């Protein structure tokens, strides 16, 4: 951004009203006809423009197997923006955006299409003054990465020149096990330097996830108890109330552990459990995350401390729903899990002896993501036993979505002449307390890609470490002869998951 020669006289660290605006650049989206692109990426681009965070010279190029002209694509973007953007639609913002919208029809394997793409981008560099800055968003199945990055290289689109940048953005899944993750990295890194590769885990763009860092490291209140002296268990939950919907082709054979645990849940675990970084610089943050992921280990007794399930047919949320095995295009004998629960232990001084329970599933009772730290009971209770019968354990719950915020749970006296103590919740609602309605995760992440700001993106070391944690569990499951345990749709998962916690004397929190 700023030059090395002379600092910008209009910039001042104290001038915190001024936002960072990305430099002029081209964002090329591969797989632009996909759901993600129309529901998340295009609206996020518009929202950024509406908030004045995109530069005047910004261009959006779509690449897909469609026979579209530029204006057809512009129409598609227009529709997507109107339907899904967070901020109100404004004609002048649209005018600014639409000037730079281009479409390149073509096949990923086709030389001619990429020649056309390279020409389009070169034209834009000229017409929009984008100055050779390009970001390639690969919203396509990982199997096609090799072809695309090779094409980008052979057409000179991946070259790094001083004073301009070329970045590649990839979406999860980052492989389906350690070996494939390494392959994928090798492919991408053969063309782009590591600093130009942005892996999007949209969870990390969420305000509340970033708030985990603020809560832990900006306050004196929580850090002293954030360890095994006070915490006796941590539960990280990501539940969805929907089934697999139209994602049968993608989901079957992959399963929810690969889809969710490897990236989202392990990233949440890392942020919850890591030591304080020296600063919020990307390298420092990453170093701490890597350290804690390297210390996390899967259970020795897989049979006791992992659980998997498949949702059965039945009633969920007042609707009759199909079981996983009856979903369209799902083979009736598939062993793909739609629910996974795993106990992990972290071998360091802060967390030794504290189990971290991760669970995720489809067709659970409601859509919720949260991190709950359960505290030990007070060592001595100066009350009669009957007084505290209703008292559970204290908890700090970081609610990630949908009702973003923090809950503290503690005991309070029930009004009346008797001393009776019961649990109460103290809520902080994130949306309610702050000014801006929080930006969508993709807005933040796309802006960070364009600014070249990496702290929120996992590097390949983190990806590999998380596969090292998950691989043994997946191998164990693959070797089991039986089907995953069926669970009632709209419930909180299979019985084996309940038993898994009961073994340690805990139970799952109802989120």
């Amino acid at each position, binding site marked *: 951004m700023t030059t090395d020669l*002379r600092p910008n006289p209009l910039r001042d660290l104290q001038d915190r009203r001024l936002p960072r605006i990305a430099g002029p650049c081209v964002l090329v989206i591969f797989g632009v006809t996909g759901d993600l692109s129309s529901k998340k990426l295009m609206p996020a681009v518009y929202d950024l423009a509406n908030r004045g965070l995109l530069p005047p010279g910004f261009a959006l190029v779509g690449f897909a197997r469609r026979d579209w002209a530029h204006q057809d694509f512009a129409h598609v973007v227009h529709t997507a923006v109107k339907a899904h953007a967070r901020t109100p639609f404004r004609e002048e913002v649209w005018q*600014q955006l639409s000037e730079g919208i281009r479409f390149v029809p073509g096949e990923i394997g086709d030389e001619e299409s990429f020649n056309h793409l390279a020409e389009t981008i070169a034209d834009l560099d000229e017409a929009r*003054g984008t100055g050779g800055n390009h970001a390639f968003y690969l919203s396509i199945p990982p199997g096609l990465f090799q072809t695309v990055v090779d094409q980008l290289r052979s057409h000179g689109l991946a070259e790094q020149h001083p004073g301009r940048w070329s970045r590649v953005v990839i979406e999860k899944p980052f492989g389906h096990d350690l070996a494939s993750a390494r392959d994928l990295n090798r492919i991408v890194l053969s063309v782009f330097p590591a600093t130009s590769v942005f892996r999007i885990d949209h969870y990390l763009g969420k305000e509340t996830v970033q708030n985990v860092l603020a809560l832990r490291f900006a306050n004196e209140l929580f850090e002293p108890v954030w360890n095994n002296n006070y915490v006796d268990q941590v539960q990280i939950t990501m539940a969805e109330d929907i089934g697999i919907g139209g994602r049968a082709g993608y989901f079957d054979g992959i399963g929810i552990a690969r889809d969710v645990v490897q990236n989202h849940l392990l990233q949440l675990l890392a942020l919850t459990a890591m030591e304080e970084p020296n600063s919020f610089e990307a390298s420092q943050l990453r170093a701490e995350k890597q350290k804690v992921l390297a210390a996390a280990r899967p259970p020795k007794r897989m049979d006791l401390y992992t659980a998997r399930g498949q949702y059965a047919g039945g009633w969920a949320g007042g609707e009759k729903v199909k079981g996983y095995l009856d979903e369209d295009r799902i083979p009736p004998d598939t062993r793909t899990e739609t629910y996974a629960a795993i106990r992990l232990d972290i071998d360091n001084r802060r967390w030794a002896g504290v189990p971290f329970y991760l669970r995720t599933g489809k067709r659970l009772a409601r859509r919720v993501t949260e991190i709950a730290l359960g505290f030990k009971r007070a060592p001595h209770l100066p009350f009669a036993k009957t007084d505290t019968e209703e008292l559970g354990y204290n908890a700090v719950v970081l609610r990630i979505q949908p009702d973003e915020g923090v809950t503290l749970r503690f005991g309070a006296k029930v009004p009346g002449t008797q001393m009776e103590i019961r649990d109460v919740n103290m809520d902080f609602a994130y949306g309610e307390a702050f000014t801006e309605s929080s930006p969508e995760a993709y807005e933040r992440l796309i802006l960070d890609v364009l600014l070249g700001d990496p702290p929120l993106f996992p590097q390949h070391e983190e990806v590999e470490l998380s596969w090292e944690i998950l691989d043994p569990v997946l191998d164990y499951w693959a070797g089991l002869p039986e089907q995953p345990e069926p669970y009632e749709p709209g419930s909180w998962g299979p019985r084996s998951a309940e038993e898994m916690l009961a073994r340690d004397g805990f139970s799952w929190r109802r989120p």
Partner: protein
Amino acid sequence: MIINLEGTSSAKISAELIRVRRSAGSPAQGMVLTLIIVCDDSEFPSALEASMAAGREHPSRILLVVTAPGRNAALDAEVHIGEGTPGEVVVIRMRGAVAAHPASVIRPLLLPDSPVVIWWPGKAPRNRADDELAQLAMRRMTDAAASPRPLAALKARAKDYTAGDTDLSWTRLTPWRALLAAALDQYPAKIKSVSIESERNNPSADLLAAWLRTRLKVQVTGKVSGGPGLTSVRMGTAAGDIAITRPDGLLASYAVPGQPERLVALKRRNFTELLSEELRRMDPDQVYEHTVKSLLDGGPKKTASRRAAEKGTAKKGTAKKGTAKKAADPARTAAKKTTITTGSR
């Protein structure tokens, strides 16, 4: 719902707020600040509307203070809560002798231990340091554009500046300033001159000129145009102008030497958006302070002499980088000093 309280007191208003909240079954309080709005009867409707909208983004306790002269002291209140009202809104009408002691009414109604912001949508008190209500607040928002002589109003504000003051005519500039700063990020040329076109009597244009003059250390000329608001800013470089032109108050064209002209959305923002930006930060805005104060010594002559003085000190520095850094430093230390003195007062 709206509850009318006639001939009331602060304690009764407080009790009513608690009662209504309880009966709504949601004692959880997510309000983050108290916003006091001081206006007269004629400004009241638009102030109420803007504050309701801003409250949607910043759940807060909004206290609208409407004062009027009168022979008999009277205190009436309207409590708006629930049903589309964000947070809590209380309209407090004071007449007669009570109107001379508004802080006695407002002080008990402030939310505990959270920021207090005051906004005068229309006329602001001449000496805000002596104003009872202004003293309750840590942030004080005025709007020079609402004054018949905006530049004079800004200068008056510069004279009695206290840490925490801002003016909405400064807030209105943020998108322009962001775009100008981004232009210099992309095209880091030495700026030789600046010209600004705007509507007559536009305080934002005065502030923008002052900002550019102090930051870039160049002469800034102003021209009157038909508006609306600011219509163009040109920064002259050796290779040509960096120009942002916005004739319609909506969409601007953006030109940088050697690059194609492009469009950029640059809408004039409404009060709600301005208030929301203001409420985002609770710390004093030192850049505003420095800018508004420079209106007092205004002329280009002084800037020139200051530049000479800086050059003198800079010669002792070794690298070119050092020079640039030092040039920014005097402003920074000056700003810091003021904060400390006002803070300890």
